[in-house]
């Protein structure tokens, strides 16, 4: 164990190294570049490789290739770069490739204000790529949590053979905070399952009971077949309803059925709460301050904070809001994640509180928008 002061970006880089990262490919983009620069210095010292590619398309495809060579791989980017990565993300989902994308949100649309913060892209992360799939994305609210959830992102990606997104923002990655870092043996590290059958019996997409196929990699003698086309368990291209249904449902269900291993959330002051605010990432920091202040004035208000945005910890959400008369969803955008919250709180009064702020919405601004409903 080691305690250090780090920025969010450095904590993500350190978390990745704790998780066993060995290959980083990227293309510089504010506000994520310090992850790249930090790893360029540090990753070689633990036997890893860092390469700058010609664009984000190359970067994501290179980490997919590296992951199939048998190592943990990641990239980091922001909105414009993630848009370019979407075809590769869809590929990673289809061919069941563990990898992590650290997505640092900045303002948009388009180039926006590169150095400034926002939470505009939470739906892009969920729905941006083509085809049907479940996505896993974590949203840390502190530098410590950036470190911890980066480790969790790698673990879940290896466990389920999926790409996982660590979704932060410009504010968090430039914040300096104290971080407790874990040494070897102090934190659980998950590695992908390897095949147990003889090489000539191995089928690259034949799942175990958990719906996840063991993963043989290149150069291990299994003659693996990576296939972006719709494929059967051997990886053979098939054009039948039967194979399409089986594949798509398994890709979706391997996340849904293992949801308990993925979801994460925190609830504060919710036991008797008449009002509950749902907030995630850096916005939740201001909301937390506001909730504490209102509590001190006798308002029965609480906070539910999803750490996994996708999928949301719906059981915990429902529980946190069980006594609430009103639920507010505070976001640093025009109000988008509120729809996901509504899905699970059908009979509740759910109110969207969108507060656009280039840094973090302040508790005062949030209260000003909320006041008319309190």
């Amino acid at each position, binding site marked *: 164990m080691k305690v250090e002061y780090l920025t969010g970006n450095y904590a993500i880089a350190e978390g990745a190294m704790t998780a066993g990262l060995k290959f980083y*490919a990227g293309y510089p983009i504010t506000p994520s570049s310090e992850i790249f620069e930090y790893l360029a210095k540090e990753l070689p010292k633990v036997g890893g490789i860092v390469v700058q590619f010609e664009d984000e398309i190359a970067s994501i495809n290179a980490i997919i*290739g590296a992951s199939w060579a048998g190592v943990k791989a990641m990239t980091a980017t922001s909105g414009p770069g993630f848009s370019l990565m979407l075809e590769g993300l869809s590929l990673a989902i289809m061919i069941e490739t563990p990898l992590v994308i650290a997505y640092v949100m900045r303002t948009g649309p388009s180039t926006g204000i590169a150095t400034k913060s926002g939470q505009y892209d939470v739906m892009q992360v969920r729905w941006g790529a083509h085809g049907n799939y479940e996505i896993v994305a974590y949203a840390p609210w502190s530098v410590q949590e950036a470190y911890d959830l980066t480790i969790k992102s790698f673990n879940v990606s290896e466990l389920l053979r999926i790409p996982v997104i660590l979704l932060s923002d410009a504010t968090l990655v430039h914040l300096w905070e104290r971080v407790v870092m874990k040494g070897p043996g102090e934190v659980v590290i998950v590695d992908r399952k390897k095949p147990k059958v003889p090489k000539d019996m191995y089928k690259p997409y034949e799942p175990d009971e958990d719906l996840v196929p063991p993963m043989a990699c290149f*150069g291990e003698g299994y003659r693996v077949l990576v*296939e972006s086309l719709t494929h059967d368990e051997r990886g053979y291209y098939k054009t039948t309803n039967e194979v399409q249904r089986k594949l798509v449902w398994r890709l979706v269900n391997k996340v849904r059925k293992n949801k308990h291993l993925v979801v994460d959330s925190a609830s504060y002051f919710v036991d008797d709460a008449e009002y509950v605010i749902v907030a995630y990432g850096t916005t939740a920091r201001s909301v937390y301050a506001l909730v504490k202040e209102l509590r001190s004035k006798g308002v029965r208000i609480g906070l539910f904070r999803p750490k996994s945005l996708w999928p949301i910890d719906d059981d915990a959400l429902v529980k946190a809001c069980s006594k609430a008369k009103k639920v507010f969803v505070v976001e640093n955008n025009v109000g988008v994640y509120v729809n996901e919250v509504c899905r699970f709180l059908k009979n509740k009064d759910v109110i969207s509180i969108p507060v656009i702020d280039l840094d973090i919405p302040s508790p005062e601004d949030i209260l000003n928008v909320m006041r008319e409903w309190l």
Partner: protein
Amino acid sequence: MSHPLDRYLRTDRLPHIWCPGCGIGIVVSAMLRAIDKHISEGHFSHDDVAVVSGIGCAARATLYLNFDSAHVIHGRAIPFAIGLKLVKPRLKVIVIGGDGDIAAIGGNHLLHAARRNVDLTVIMVNNMIYGMTGGQVAPTTPPTIYTTTTPYGNYEYPINVIKLLSALNTNYVARASITHPHLIERYIYKALSIEGLAFIEVLSTCPEVFGRHLGFKNAVEFFNKLKEMVRPYEKPPIERSDIVWGNEIVIGEYVINNREGFVRSVYKSLNKWCKG
């Protein structure tokens, strides 16, 4: 009865999807003979070979190859292959694809792979058309020719990838043709022993789509026309590399350099960095 090269094929997947008379099969079999020669000479083993391809008719080769193989997305075989190669330098990584896959949508990756001299063997099957999607113009299509997206005739000037890569000091740049299969084999064999990027363009025929555009009655007529134009030379000068349909098309080993490969330079500088 089995063929000696069958061990390199997923024979249970045959027959393949290529049209009768398509040139791609000639490229793939020449590639397998080149690989087999290396393996039988003990230079590397069957399990040291990896093949990566994007999307297109030529890229479909990976479906049938009994190596570690990846059939990924259109244009992105090279970056996938680079990630693979950097992590497992022992592997002989081959990228195979069409001219659209490698020189159009994947063109930027090719250019930077050449600049970096990445240790890959890249085989571009140039049929001068988009075969898989039904005959649209490619960056290699000769001027004035009818395609489905240039019904008035191609108004563009084709890319000469040989010239492009020679300007980037690529270690090995050759052009072959399906009309001369022994040369495809010889160049791929050479490419597989070279450090850095080895690029081989193989002129091919697409009788089904491009053949119709050009007005050939059958695959043989198309093949014979190509054979009539193609002429091999020993170390031809780069100035001879432009392709003008109807004129002599020069094939041969255009460039042989000895620059340090990407894998060696990456590992060297990272090791130095770690030692302080």
